[in-house]
């Protein structure tokens, strides 16, 4: 099956599926991406949500969505998706629901739920080959509680629970958990990373995913102004820098086979991405922590070297 990809941002529908005036922070990179995701998914959607920032999108009696919504709890949105999907299938099969009424079931979770507390229920749903979409808005910490360390927090980021201080000047000592590879080991039909700064890539990935029955999973790197300590107007810029520095690799895996969908012609130094963000400020002030900066750069270089070996692409 071939899908015709869109070429430019002009091909993205202008009609909005999510109305403005939500309680998310100004400049939320997650919301920016979700806006595009919903344009790709259309209106026949039910979002099954896990506890996180986006839970506050639907507060009684309001919802910004034109689609349906079910809030579950932090650990179990994929199980909620299982229940909804199974019930829709049963109703259609038993002739109690017009197939025209069918919905795409979409899990929407933050990284805390995706990387940590909800990993078992996600693994279960992928393994059972549940026909659903999964969107993780990954701002690299527990954002709704005020930015504490999560399994998604990258090396050297400071968070509320991994502050940089005299004893631990690095902030977060651990590296970001590789959720993409964890998911990929389940061999879902479609898996991709996305960025709000690359809407064309994002839309095309959803278009491609749509051909497959089974789990279709997306991780969006989501600039988060209050947590990253950045200006709300800079979210798209940081999303773009994350890709241009090679820190956030845009890729997909179809039934386990990985392909990078965007490779910068020339990688920018990681410092350009790090230095404007308050969560990395301790790497620059009061003294430059050269070793840490070099290590981050080295991690990125190593990642892309491996990519080059595996996919023989030109860097």
């Amino acid at each position, binding site marked *: 099956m071939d899908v015709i990809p869109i070429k430019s941002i002009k091909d993205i529908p202008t009609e909005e599926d999510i109305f403005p005036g939500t309680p998310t922070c100004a400049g939320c990179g997650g919301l920016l991406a979700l806006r595009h995701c919903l344009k790709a998914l259309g*209106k*026949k959607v*039910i979002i*099954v949500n896990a506890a996180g920032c986006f*839970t*506050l999108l*639907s*507060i*009684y009696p309001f*919802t910004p*969505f*034109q*689609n*349906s*919504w*079910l*809030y*579950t*709890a932090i*650990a*179990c949105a*994929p*199980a*909620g*998706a*299982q*229940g*909804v999907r*199974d*019930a*829709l*299938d*049963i*109703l259609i099969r*038993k002739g*109690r*629901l017009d197939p*025209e*009424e*069918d*919905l795409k079931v979409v899990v929407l979770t933050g990284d805390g739920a995706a990387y940590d507390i909800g990993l*078992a*229920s996600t*693994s*279960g749903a992928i393994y*059972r080959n549940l026909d659903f979409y999964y969107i993780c808005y990954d701002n690299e910490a527990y954002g709704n509680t005020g930015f504490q360390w999560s399994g998604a927090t990258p090396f050297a980021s400071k968070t509320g629970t991994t502050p940089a201080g005299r004893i631990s000047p690095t902030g977060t000592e651990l590296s970001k958990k590789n959720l993409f590879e964890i998911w990929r080991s389940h061999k879902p039909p479609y898996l991709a990373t996305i960025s709000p700064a690359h809407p064309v890539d994002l839309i095309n990935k959803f278009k491609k995913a749509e051909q497959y029955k089974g789990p279709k999973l997306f991780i969006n790197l989501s600039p988060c102004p209050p947590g990253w300590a950045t200006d709300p107007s800079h979210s798209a810029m940081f999303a773009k820098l994350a890709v241009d520095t090679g820190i956030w690799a845009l890729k997909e895996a179809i039934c386990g086979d990985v392909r990078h969908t965007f490779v910068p012609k020339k990688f920018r130094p990681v410092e350009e991405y790090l230095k404007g963000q308050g969560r990395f400020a301790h790497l620059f002030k009061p003294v430059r922590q050269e070793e840490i900066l070099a290590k981050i750069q080295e991690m990125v270089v190593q990642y892309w070297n491996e990519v080059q070996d595996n996919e023989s692409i030109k860097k």
Partner: protein
Amino acid sequence: MTKEMLTGNAAAAWGVRLAEVDYIPAYPITPQTEIIETLAKWISAGVLDARFVTVDSEHSMITAAGAASATGVRVFTATSSQGLLYGFEMLYAVAGWRVPLVMVNVSRGLSAPITLEPDHNDILAARDSGFLQIHCETCQEVLDSILMAYRLAEDERVLLPVFVNMDGFHLSFTREPVEIPDLEKAKMFLPAYQPRHAFFKASQPMAQGVAVIGGPAYSYFKYQMHLASIKALEVYNEASKEFGKIFGRSHNTIEGYMIDDAEYILVMINSFSTLGKAAIKEARAKDIKAGLLKLRLLRPFPESDIVKAIKGAKAAAVVDQNISVGKGGILHSEIAGAICNQKDKPLLLSFIGGLGGKNISPQEFEFIIDCMVKAADTGEIPAPRLLYTETEWKEMDRLKKMAGKL
């Protein structure tokens, strides 16, 4: 109608089959597993048209059950003990979604120490969740209660999930003769589930389970659940009457055994009530006017039925097969709360027995009845007691010696 020897678990499965359930998310745990195995077998054989899915945990299981029920299918699931507690968060959540699913809990003592045999700390932990609770003494009650449970849960005046509880081993694995109603009759009692409030469909987007901000909205929705649960008392009685008409037997909110003229009343719940009833017979043979009150519907709490049943007795003893550590018997507190403002109330004694499936012997029942008689004579109420025989104490000593602790 046929009569068969069924275990409590098989009786539960039959209830589910007769309710023509659409969806069963499951997760195995002893002593519940026979229920889901039976259902899986029937689905595979084509005699039950339902979808069965084994999920990754009880937490996921209750979520999937609630979400499917919110989408509009009839859902059943079952668990026990540790599993119930593992999914605990979602009990409150799905009750708040107002989804009428039915869940069997096969009672089993809670870890630690880890054990297999029954007491009621598991199901009583879920007491305040919003689920209604029906407790069963016999395998027949288990089957019947599942049909009753759907009827109750799906009534638009209620719309709350329901637990049907039975004791692990003592009922789950005990065979008793059970009348299996005809499907046609079961359908007369329990028509197909056609929810008007629970659906997800393209033409009519809806947000369910949404957040609220502020106490007034939260209080409003919580108290609505409470009112719906209280309303379920009336709905239960209606359903029970109709059940009687169709099937020729019925189960009230409570059951009185030799209670009408009783001066001394045992208050019990679930399968150990059978032991209590035998003790009452013994006492009657000795001319002690004893009787037994068995609680069946625990949530909503049939307060006025209970008050009426024990009114005028000299003493009542609650035998709690549970322990609220640091307080004592949970049902004792509940009964005390129910009668505290009544004029003609009996003296109320508290006993804890049967923890982790420990037997309650005829001598222990004799002791309880004796305590009631003495209390009525002297007006002095003994302190709450743990039922534990001398033989059991000696055996425990032996174990402690082996463990090097004595």
